[in-house]
């Protein structure tokens, strides 16, 4: 397992560059409001359909959720891009025995209320049109091992163009409660219902 080596200095240099890249590639990033509990770390779950997902999560963390950003990445991916290691990336390898260590590592990070860990619960790249979000069992493990207060937030991101030449990204947030009242099955149902609702809402998105 590759642990994170987050550097505040690298992060500070990278954020303006990320903002520039996002501005160049997208028209707007639009998100709705979600209740952010003070004194809680955040476990951020999102749908995974593009190369950009991690960057959007990083940007939203920086501008809206205001926590220190960490992200769980596939081991073979992070090995090729060790730079992300400096921005808070740590590895998970689903095939190896070390998977438990990675999950425990995420839980340890979440025990500190100033942290945020991004996880793609689907564990694979899926279509943006997909209407089902699969939550892997690892999430359950992470949340159970957290020592302290943690809020679980999910968002569905969708790409739409409308009048602009550049695509816009629409984030639909969902507050999934805290680690104390966490029930994996219930959250799975909640997220899927929210995702379906978000897909419907996207059709009527203001533009």
């Amino acid at each position, binding site marked *: 397992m590759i642990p994170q080596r987050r550097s505040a200095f690298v992060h500070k240099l990278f954020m303006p560059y990320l903002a520039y890249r996002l501005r160049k*590639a997208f028209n707007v990033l639009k998100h709705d409001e979600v209740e952010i509990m003070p004194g809680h770390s955040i476990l951020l779950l999102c749908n995974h*359909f*593009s*190369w*950009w997902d991690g960057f959007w999560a990083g940007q939203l963390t920086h501008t809206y959720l205001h926590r220190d950003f960490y992200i769980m990445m596939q081991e073979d991916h992070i090995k090729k891009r060790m730079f992300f290691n400096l921005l808070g990336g740590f590895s998970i390898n689903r095939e190896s025995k070390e998977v438990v260590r990675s999950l425990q590592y995420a839980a340890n990070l979440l025990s500190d209320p100033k942290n945020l860990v991004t996880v793609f619960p689907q564990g*694979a*790249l*899926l*279509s*943006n*049109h*997909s*209407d089902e979000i699969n939550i892997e069992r690892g999430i359950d493990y992470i949340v159970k091992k957290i020592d302290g207060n943690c809020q679980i937030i999910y968002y569905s991101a*969708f*790409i*739409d*163009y*409308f*009048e*602009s*030449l550049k*695509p816009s990204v629409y984030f639909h947030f969902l507050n999934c409660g805290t680690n104390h009242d966490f029930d994996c099955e219930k959250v799975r149902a909640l997220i899927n219902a929210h995702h379906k609702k978000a*897909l419907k809402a*996207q*059709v*009527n*998105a203001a*533009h």
Partner: protein
Amino acid sequence: MIRNKKNFFIHSLLSIYTRWLLKRTFHQFSFNQLDVDPNKSILLISNHFSFWDALIAYKINRKLLRKKFHVMVREDTTLHLHSLKYGGAFSVSKKSRDMVESLNYAAELLHDPKNLVLMFPQGKLHSNFVEQINFEKGIMRIIERSGGNFQLVFAATFIQYFRSKKPSITTYLKNEEYHGQSLEELQSAYQQHYDIAKREQTEIVI
């Protein structure tokens, strides 16, 4: 109403620019093959979710359908983008009597087997995530006045990202036999094609 204009020079420039723009903006562009009848004009019906739709259809026409490209666009966009008329755009305005003129003009274009007319029957921009495609009435007027010698082609376009930084386009094309269907029947035929395409897009896992 603004009609399309012929100008070899400007058209060539627009064509080169469009090719460059599409290449630069998108990672991949795929569409399925289709039989084209050389003795018939083509009425291309597509979903409308962005400015790119017309350019996507333009490229499909250049690569596959090989007709003279025409597209019906809203008057407010044509006023801003006056050069588009050299690329085959003619205007339609929703409110005035102009609309009838535009629809008649589109029908006229379909008389010539060398032409292709692209139409967005949804009438305005919608999300790429819509489930229900609603047709406006105008399309029936075009079909009724066109003399029936046209090939009806359905196109459903979707955007995906996956591993690339740039989006990819997939267009699903389908020939539809026209034998006097009503607006509702046409709409449900398109809906069927759209649903199949959307399902295929939904099930992609990488």
